[in-house]
């Protein structure tokens, strides 16, 4: 983008022009050296407001719930921005982004800004640029910022890294509380919402999650579980109240319970790097071995024994 055009956009941003905001968000997504340089004064103006992350299995009603939250925030006179992340196809690289469909009543509200983002196959499922977008929306002056992510892979860890309050949306059909434990959601979530509360099994799931809080008291000390029905607008004010209480807790204790999560996130990123380099090396230097494993002439464990040498070398920092 030519310099004068970018300058105009930045001026438009400061004047609170939404078209300029939208185009600047696109530049952040494209992440060229020039845009990084020109946008850094904007990033610096982020106030550090507390953000809301929403995650959970697909089909849980996250978008419908966000629609209700927007209504509630707007009734309080607050402006709301949402970053809605959906997965990109790992095969084609494309995506269908449909979270907006649930929020149509807010399309023409000048106090609401909705942006759909494709994960673009970043390992965690949450795109790098989603993080930068939240900074820009903060700098723009939005009162509330909500980030929605599809709850697969490690995206829960990533959203917990960005958002100070993480909402986990579950439904009675999606399975039992054990799934929550398995997926690591207990660590990540601050408020657990059992959506579609009118469906059978909702009460049972509520008790199961509460019981888990009891079993893991040190981990779950300030976590909450609530029932809601986004479609019927039930439980929303309680949810808004719980978000407020969580924010007060963060202010009072100065804690955010994210230490282990950040460690996990760092390890995850390091392992991803190591993993991809090792895999490439393996395919390049031992194609015969790989073929033997693929055609079941050699088991993966037998192949691993043969690769000990390679792995040792990589760990010592020497390459072949």
């Amino acid at each position: 983008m030519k310099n004068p055009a970018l300058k105009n956009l930045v001026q438009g941003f400061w004047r609170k022009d939404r078209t300029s905001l939208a185009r600047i968000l696109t530049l952040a997504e494209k992440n060229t050296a020039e845009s990084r340089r020109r946008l850094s004064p904007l990033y610096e103006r982020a106030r550090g407001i507390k953000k809301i992350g929403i995650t959970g299995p697909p089909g849980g009603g996250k978008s419908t719930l966000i629609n209700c939250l927007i209504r509630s925030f707007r009734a309080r006179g607050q402006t709301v921005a949402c970053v809605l992340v959906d997965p990109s196809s790992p095969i084609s690289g494309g995506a269908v982004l449909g979270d907006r469909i649930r929020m149509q009543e807010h399309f023409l509200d000048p106090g609401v800004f909705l942006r759909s983002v494709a994960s673009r196959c970043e390992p965690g499922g949450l795109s790098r640029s989603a993080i930068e977008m939240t900074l820009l929306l903060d700098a723009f002056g939005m009162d509330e910022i909500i980030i929605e992510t599809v709850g697969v892979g490690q995206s829960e860890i990533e959203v917990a890294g960005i958002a100070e309050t993480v909402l986990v949306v579950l439904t009675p059909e999606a399975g039992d509380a054990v799934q929550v434990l398995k997926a690591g959601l207990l660590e990540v979530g601050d408020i657990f919402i059992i959506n579609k509360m009118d469906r059978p099994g909702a009460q049972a799931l509520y008790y199961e999650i509460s019981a888990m809080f009891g079993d893991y008291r040190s981990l779950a000390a300030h976590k909450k579980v609530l029932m809601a029905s986004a479609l019927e607008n039930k439980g929303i004010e309680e949810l808004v109240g719980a978000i407020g209480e969580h924010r007060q807790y963060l202010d009072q204790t100065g804690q955010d319970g994210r230490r282990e999560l950040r460690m996990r996130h760092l390890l995850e990123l390091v392992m991803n790097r190591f993993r991809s380099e090792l895999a490439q090396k393996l395919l390049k230097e031992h194609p015969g071995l790989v073929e033997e494993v693929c055609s079941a002439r050699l088991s993966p464990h037998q192949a691993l024994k043969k690769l000990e040498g390679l792995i040792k070398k990589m760990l010592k920092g020497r390459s072949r």
Partner: protein
Amino acid sequence: MGSEKIRILVAKPGLDGHDRGAKVVARALRDAGFEVIYTGLHQTPEMIVESAVQEDVDIIGISILSGAHMTVFPEVLKLLKKKKAGHIKVFGGGIIPRDDVKKLKAMGVLEIFLSGTNTDSIVEFGKKKIAGK
């Protein structure tokens, strides 16, 4: 590293309740690597343009089977200009008489794909007209 993904808004305006075609096109575009935003049925031109601006899409694809095209397309073009979003292009598809296709193109609609068009043509158009711009 920048990413050259093309973002398209697929829009269903007005009373037309048939969105199978729009969904087929959306999936074909996704399979060709585009990022497609679909906002559902019964959109007004204002809603379409507002969504397109917030999402900063490269192009809007409007699907009309109801005959309202000579009202909807001009309105969308007008609103885009009003919001200083003339950089967002417009194309469309559905049931539109050939004479009207000519008129719409004269107004600034890039292309109209009539019912029965192969999705490959739409993908080609997307890649050439937008990626090659």
